[in-house]
């Protein structure tokens, strides 16, 4: 039995009730349905706003982060007044202001193999709004094991991908991407960033797909992948087939329970802000500030050239991480050297590259130039 709509709800959803494909029955279906949104960031913002506005009866939000002002360029569910607050609480307040008729359940915790099945089991649909490979594979496998549709979206700079992975009716994420790229080959780290409106475009498509699946109307992107590029303003579609060798949804699947996704992907899914190469390879910004007073040190900035316009250290040599392997001859292994980037992840990779090439007198600046800007030279901006 579908729940009835109150007089207030009929007025609130009247523009839906006027569409024959939704109508009163469809709106009651939405009221009776539930959606779990993994991540309350760039994608989670438009997804949760539109699903709440549409009258999904119960929405779950999973996120463990707090709102930072650098989020607000794209995470439009949050605001200046909620900087420093828990993202799930900031989002819940906004969603209940938009639609007090619905229920919002929040999970202020990382989504992990330990809690994911418990959190997801009572929802009708899962929306993947994560920003890292381990949580993406986890989200996929949870959806496969629980037999639920996983509305997938992913973004990078100007590119977006959207699909509905529903193993009961089509392929899953692993059918397309059986394994993640090795960490050293993920270019997003070296050149991240995203046009703020991109998750808006892509997240809105994600919400559209979720509503179609819940209403049972139209043709959801099951077995199809949408590829969007904002610069070209291109929408391309490709066909996806179930992979008979898929390790989670294929006929001979050998992965039957959740695994250690961080180990599988070789990268951490959480607390990945500051890179560290391990204590013996790290130098802190305070130590560096002391060392440069007395010793000669070669500073190597492995960021992209356009980042130097934001902040730079005097006398640093810029060799972007992607070019480092080809430009080793420009460095002298006899010289004491400190590598740095924005917050330490790229310079950690640069350090691995240099040490495997035989460099020994090389250190990684822990926390990167942002730590320097926070603790040593506060006239530099943090980004």
């Amino acid at each position: 039995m579908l729940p009835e709509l109150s007089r207030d709800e009929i007025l609130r959803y009247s523009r839906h009730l006027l569409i024959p494909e939704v109508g009163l029955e469809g709106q009651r279906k939405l009221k009776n349905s539930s959606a779990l949104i993994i991540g309350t960031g760039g994608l989670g913002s438009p997804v949760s706003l539109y699903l709440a506005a549409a009258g999904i009866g119960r929405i779950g939000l999973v996120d463990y982060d707090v709102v930072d002002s650098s989020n607000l360029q794209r995470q439009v569910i949050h605001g200046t007044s909620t900087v420093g607050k828990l993202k799930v609480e900031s989002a819940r307040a906004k969603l209940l202001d938009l639609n007090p008729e619905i229920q919002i359940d929040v999970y202020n915790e990382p989504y992990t193999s330990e809690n994911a099945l418990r959190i997801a089991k009572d929802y009708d649909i899962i929306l993947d709004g994560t920003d890292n490979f381990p949580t993406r594979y986890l989200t996929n496998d949870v959806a496969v094991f629980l037999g639920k549709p996983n509305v997938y979206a992913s973004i990078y700079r100007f590119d977006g991908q959207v699909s509905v992975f529903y193993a009961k009716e089509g392929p899953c994420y692993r059918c397309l991407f059986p394994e993640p790229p090795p960490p050293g080959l993920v270019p997003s780290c070296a050149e991240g960033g995203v046009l703020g409106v991109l998750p808006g475009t892509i997240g809105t498509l994600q919400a559209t797909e979720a509503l179609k699946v819940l209403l049972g109307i139209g043709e959801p992107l099951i077995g199809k992948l949408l590829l969007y590029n904002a610069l070209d303003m291109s929408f391309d579609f490709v066909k996806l087939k179930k992979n008979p060798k898929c390790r989670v949804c294929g006929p001979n699947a050998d992965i039957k329970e959740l695994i250690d996704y961080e180990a599988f992907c070789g990268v951490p899914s959480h607390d990945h802000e500051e890179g560290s190469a391990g204590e013996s390879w790290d130098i802190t910004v305070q130590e560096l500030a002391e060392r440069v007073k007395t010793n000669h040190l070669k500073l190597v900035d492995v960021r992209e050239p356009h980042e130097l316009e934001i902040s730079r250290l005097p006398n640093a040599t810029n060799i972007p991480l992607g070019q480092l392997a080809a430009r080793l001859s420009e460095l002298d292994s006899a010289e004491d050297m400190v590598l740095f980037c924005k917050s330490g992840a790229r310079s950690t990779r640069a350090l691995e590259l240099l040490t495997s090439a035989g460099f020994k007198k090389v250190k990684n600046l822990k926390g990167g130039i942002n730590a320097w800007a926070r603790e040593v030279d506060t006239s530099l901006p943090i980004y």
Partner: protein
Amino acid sequence: MPVLRIPTPLRAYTNGQSEVNVNGSNISDALTDLTTQYPSLRPHLFNEGGDLRPFVNLFVGENNIKDLQGVDTPIKDGEKIMLIPSIAGGAHVA
């Protein structure tokens, strides 16, 4: 000539080119030509043994070459080949 669409994450290795004209009558030849034109792209597409990496998806028209004849899939003049990357999403950069 077939045209290979390069996704944004890999354009750093093609001097920013979004499309590259390639010579070849099948995918294997086209990729050889692509990585000859842009050698730094090679480790992103192939493993040390010279095999296409499992997370690299190539589509001829709407179809994944894995559902066709793999790297032996024939390609015609002017045909569009799409290289689809595995992107984690998000805006994080360290």
